[in-house]
């Protein structure tokens, strides 16, 4: 009786045909990489958020801009995105302000451009590898389905050689093949969920950075003429 055969997951995987095994191995690799990036991105996003919180607190507590700039420039490697935006803008502003024939509006414009460039680099850094999660989410079910279809094709081909067809002759083959779909779904579902969540989190962080850029431009504009020379 085929039904009493061992249907444990290991025997199912080991009995599958070569192509199905390859598909499973590929999917397990994809799944591993997608989980790796899920964890790394979540650490990176959490870190960016907490540093943004910390810097906002320092910035709005009314400290000296020069002191903030010094600490940001000294501790570059641990600086968060907002701190780097501030550093780039302030550095550019100070440089331009030192020139003779440049008025405040031009200096503030230059500072904004510098901040925007840094902002885009930071957002790009945060968003890197999200595309991998997105394509894992959309493609791995299809890869799994391919393995399943192939396995089921083999199961039915084997069935055609048998005179008397019973469910017990096809069932193990189909169960084997379905393992591929299961692995594909296991890779895809968390990737899709994580992609959506990360995209949302990054949007919120970048909005905070953008509004900080506007507010900081205003501060620069206000203090510009007084400090010039």
């Amino acid at each position: 009786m085929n039904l009493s055969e061992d249907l444990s997951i290991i025997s199912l995987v080991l009995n599958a045909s070569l192509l199905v095994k390859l598909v499973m191995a590929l999917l397990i690799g994809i799944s591993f990489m997608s989980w790796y990036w899920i964890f790394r991105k979540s650490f990176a996003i959490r870190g960016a958020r907490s540093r943004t919180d910390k810097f906002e607190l320092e910035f709005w507590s009314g400290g000296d801009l020069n002191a903030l700039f010094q600490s940001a420039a000294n501790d570059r490697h641990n600086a968060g995105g907002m701190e780097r935006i501030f550093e780039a803008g302030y550095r550019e502003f100070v440089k331009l302000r030192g020139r003779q024939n440049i008025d405040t509006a031009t200096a503030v414009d230059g500072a904004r451009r510098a901040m925007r460039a840094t902002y885009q680099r930071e957002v790009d850094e945060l968003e890197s590898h999200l595309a991998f999660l997105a394509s894992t989410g959309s493609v791995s079910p299809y890869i799994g389905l391919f393995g399943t279809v192939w396995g089921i094709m083999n199961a039915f081909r084997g069935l055609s050689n048998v005179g008397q067809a019973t469910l017990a002759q096809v069932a193990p083959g189909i169960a084997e093949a379905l393992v591929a779909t299961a692995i594909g779904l296991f890779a895809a579902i968390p990737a899709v969920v994580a992609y959506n969540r990360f995209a949302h989190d990054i949007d919120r962080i970048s909005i905070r950075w953008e509004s900080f850029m506007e507010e900081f431009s205003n501060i620069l504009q206000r203090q510009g003429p007084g400090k010039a020379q």
Partner: protein
Amino acid sequence: MREHALKRPEPGKWQSAVLAAGMHLLLGLFLFYSVRWQTSKPAAVQVELISSMPTVAAPVRPPPPEPVVEKRPEPVVEPPPPPPPAKPDIAFKEPPKPKPVPKVEPKPEPKPEPRPKPEPKPVEKQPDVKPAPPDTRREIEAQDRMLKEAMTRESAEQAQREASREADLIAQAAAEGARRSAANAWGDKISARIRGNIVLPPGASGNPEALVAIALLPDGSVVGEPRMKRSTGNPALDDAILRAIVKSSPLPKPDDPSVFVRNLDLVFRPLGQ
């Protein structure tokens, strides 16, 4: 700036690798155990009590060697010249029936007979079972022939020939008897298996008997559809028997492989023993 951006620390590289590995380990364990659990459930046990059947068949063995002498007249009923070959035919068709027992017993009694009349009566019962339709006419013919046979055999020549033949036949019949009892045992096994799968239609009663032709593979599985050679007279019961045979595939194999036949004619009594 660009250099600076490239140099930035990568937080949690190893941490995430370890976490991802742990995640997959968890999934693997979960799959392993959950799929295991499912498989342990469907293990149902089917028990067939077959061993008691052969004991019923066993008493059959002693009788055949004795009645050998007697049997010669009997096969004459259908094919006069070759008495021994007729028997295997019957043996194969009849295996499942325990009837052979009663069949054999009546013979020894009529044996010492010079009188033909008493003999036909016990014999009558057997033809009922095997060659069905033209009962009465055959009976009469058989009686006549038997009479003549009995007369002629009393002549000395035949007595001598018979004596030599008898020895052969006894040996043959002994082998035949063993074979037949094995075939009977096999038939009983098959009947028991089929009886376990049959769903009797309502209103089936009495002790109907069906003759079913089954094509078998050497492993006992049924090829194609079994055919009803002789109906029980109740179409619903016939269908139930055919369905039960298909459902019982593979049928049990005989203990003695030489008994196996590809095209088996099974006499089956769905209600009786």
